[in-house]
């Protein structure tokens, strides 16, 4: 417990350190592009794949549960939209990203730690936290685009599954999508996404940067990083939902 509190303190100190002694812009710019490519562009494929099929499954499940004739069919489209925009895309996809992005970040920074590359940066007079974490943080600003894509593809997956599977007509699905649309829900979803993006960039960096030991510990650190990143996302999800929607 005390160790956990100490770690949380250390995490916030690290956040401050990221902005000190900045690296030359000419070099930083390239690092940022590289991280966007690795973390964001590199995730699009898996996110699109997952979103399509989960959107489809959510729609089929809803259709199977709403089979009472007095419930209008378009509500299937409505329910699918709500679950995808409010929870599936922002939260569920972020947890999966904690596995993909998170373990990449922890293991790459952790490997640099155990092979003394971080010491090498420090000896050269470079602030390793700025050099390594800042570009990831900036790249994570573009993370909401990933989630926007996930929402579109998820809903598209629902549309295809709903109409191809004969659960409801395509027009009814579209009618449901437009039904009772509350713009603030989109705002809520993207506030969450921005916070999760920040967590995804910084918590795994923390576990990589402060790890000790050798190659074996890099694997352990990645696992720990995944667990704690997911926990942080789930807790923030709860707090933000309570604050913004309740």
């Amino acid at each position, binding site marked *: 417990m005390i160790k956990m509190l100490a770690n949380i303190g250390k995490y916030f100190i690290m956040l401050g350190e990221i902005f000190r002694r900045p690296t*030359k812009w000419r070099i930083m710019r390239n690092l940022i592009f590289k991280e966007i490519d690795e973390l964001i562009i590199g995730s699009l494929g898996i996110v699109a794949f997952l979103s399509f099929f989960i959107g489809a499954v959510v729609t089929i499940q809803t259709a199977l549960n709403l089979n009472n004739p007095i419930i209008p069919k378009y509500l299937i489209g409505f329910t699918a939209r709500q679950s995808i925009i409010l929870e599936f895309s922002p939260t569920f996809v972020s947890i999966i990203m904690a596995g993909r992005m998170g373990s990449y970040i922890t293991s790459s920074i952790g490997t*640099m730690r155990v092979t003394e*590359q971080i010491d090498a940066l420090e000896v*050269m007079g470079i602030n390793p936290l700025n050099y390594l974490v800042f570009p990831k943080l900036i790249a994570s600003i573009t993370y909401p685009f990933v989630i926007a894509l996930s929402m579109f593809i998820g809903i598209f997956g629902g549309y295809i599954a709903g109409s191809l599977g004969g659960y409801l007509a395509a027009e009814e699905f579209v009618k449901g999508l437009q039904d009772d649309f509350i713009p603030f829900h989109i705002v809520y979803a993207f506030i969450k996404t921005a916070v999760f993006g920040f967590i995804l960039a910084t918590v795994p960096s923390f576990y990589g940067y402060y790890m000790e030991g050798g190659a074996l510990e890099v694997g352990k650190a990645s696992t720990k990083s995944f667990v704690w990143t997911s926990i942080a996302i789930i807790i923030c999800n709860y707090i933000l939902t309570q604050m913004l929607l309740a």
Partner: protein
Amino acid sequence: MIEVKDLKKSFDDKEVLKGITTTYEAGKTNLIIGQSGSGKTVMLKTLLGVHIPDSGQILFDGRDFATLDPNEKRTLRTEMGMVFQGSALFDSMNVEENIGFPLKMFTKKSNAEIRDRVQEVIDRVKLIDANKKMPSEISGGMQKRVAIARAIVNNPKYLFCDEPNSGLDPKTSIVIDELIQEITHEYNITTVINTHDMNSVLQIGEHICFLKDGKLVWEGNSEEIMKTDNEDIVDFVYSSELLKEIRRFHTGKK
């Protein structure tokens, strides 16, 4: 020249350096030897400023790192080069980029100037056909050459090497040792090397500090170390039965 005065460093409750005083002269290969865990790496990293000493003084040609302002600190940093135990090459960069990195970071040199200087040191450390290779694609001996090239690319006044021979075969070790020694003489660098390789000690030990449990228990050069009766040294140098036998044969001492 680096003067070290009563240097102390602890981690938590563990005292690792217990008051070390010595002088490292320019143009000489200064060795720190001692068993695993005796504090060699901590000593080197404290000299480099990675660890902050608890007490004592380190003077770099009269400049005390602790009392310098940030600007002067930065200047002093750029005068230091370090060769890490595992080479610590950046694995996202190829050989050329690794070597040019300190220049790109800390000088206003143009890309063409950087390229020329990088090629100059690549030739100096005799790296052949490796410019575009990634660190993982070259042998350990070549990685060491790259690490040395990266350490000297910015013309350092002070060069630190942490076990430059670890992981190398004896022949390659000697080549790397000699390379470091040549460079030290050629550019009049103050070089400090950690090692527990007796070959290096005899080959390039111009000034040797023997550390034991964080204390400096003996100083001298490679000739003196063979003659001393200091028990700790004898124990360290003649570690195997074979070597002890040889010593008995030559000196008649036990």
